[in-house]
């Protein structure tokens, strides 16, 4: 490792709510090996340079969705972004855009958690099957209709990529609407009516202006912009009273 160790400058946005009136950048010199992620750089800072640095992380392998930061202005997961790709230039790390900064790289995501609950992220069958009726059956083709939308890890990169959410925080937003579509697109679910208020609202799919950056930054290929924009068509059909004829028989509240 020693011969491959280089030193990179990492600028981190610092905000200490009890001392600062606004955030400021602080630069750290971090020796790194070729396989070091930005997250490992932050961990080095916390362990060896400044233990007061606050940031969220957990799994280190793009599964948990905790380490989303703005890295050189782009929303990325710290664990799958590598320092070698920025060297010899500086790399600038900030908290995810469009969320209030709680402290350093930690943002307040309460708003998103509320929206996540609001979309009823669970299967709503018309009539729950009894044990005697057995399991819900699903073909691979039926599963394909929702599988990619179920890959969301709630890392919120898409919210940091969405200027609409920054300008109108009331917007339900990419991840929540993609997950809403994940359930609506599941053949075991007949919950359109239970979720239609969220979809059809001005802050629902119609707030989206199809910037499309959410799908670009998603580390899991969820494509929230696709989920949202095909539901503009569904919402229109619903408005004209056509959708209920197209839904699988017997949608439910």
């Amino acid at each position, binding site marked *: 490792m020693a011969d491959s160790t280089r030193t990179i400058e990492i600028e981190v946005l610092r905000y200490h709510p*009890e001392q600062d009136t606004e955030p400021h950048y602080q630069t750290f010199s971090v020796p790194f090996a070729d396989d070091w992620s930005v997250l490992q750089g932050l961990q080095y800072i916390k362990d060896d340079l400044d233990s007061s640095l606050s940031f969220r992380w957990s799994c280190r392998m793009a599964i948990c969705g905790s380490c989303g930061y703005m890295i050189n202005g782009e929303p990325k997961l710290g664990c799958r972004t590598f320092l070698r790709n920025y060297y010899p230039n500086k790399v600038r790390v900030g908290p995810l855009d469009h969320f209030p900064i709680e402290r350093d790289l930690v943002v307040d995501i309460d708003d998103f958690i509320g929206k996540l609950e609001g979309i009823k992220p669970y299967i709503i069958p018309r009539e729950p099957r009894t044990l005697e009726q057995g399991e819900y059956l699903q073909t691979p083709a039926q599963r394909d209709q929702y599988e990619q939308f179920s890959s969301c890890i709630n890392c919120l990169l898409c919210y940091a990529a969405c200027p609409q959410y920054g300008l109108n925080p009331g917007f339900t937003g990419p991840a929540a609407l993609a997950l809403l579509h994940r359930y609506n697109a599941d053949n075991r679910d007949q919950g359109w009516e239970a979720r239609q208020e969220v979809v059809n609202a001005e802050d629902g799919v119609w707030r989206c202006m*199809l910037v499309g950056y959410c799908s*670009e930054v998603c580390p899991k290929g969820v494509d929230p912009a696709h989920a949202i924009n095909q539901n503009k068509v569904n919402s229109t059909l619903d408005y004209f009273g056509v959708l209920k004829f197209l839904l699988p028989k017997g949608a439910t509240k």
Partner: protein
Amino acid sequence: MSATKPYVRPMAGWWRRNPFFMRYMAREASAVFLAIYAVTLLVGVFRLSQGKAVYDAWLAALTSPLSIVFHLVALLAVCYHAYTWWKVMPKTLPMLHIGGRRIPETTLSAVGWAAWLAASVIVYALVRGL
């Protein structure tokens, strides 16, 4: 628990922060030229209903340098708008499958671009009487 003091960052100048946002704004702005061109064309139809002399005067006005520059700019803007329109169009469609395989978005956009090109060639040929 109530001791938090979250800092909310301003959104001013948001679209200059990222090239992706700048392309988005260019896409939206190009529609303005499309609208102005449509209004110009509507005025022409209205002038036609007022008689030959008035219509000829409208045609003559179109040959002014200012008008020609506008039409060149509008042509470029409309081309960019049409390109981006087909590019994002697949996002509005449900998942489409052929023979059990999903049609990629790039294929859908390419079909759109090809149709746009074909329609442009046909319309041009019709107008030119080829």
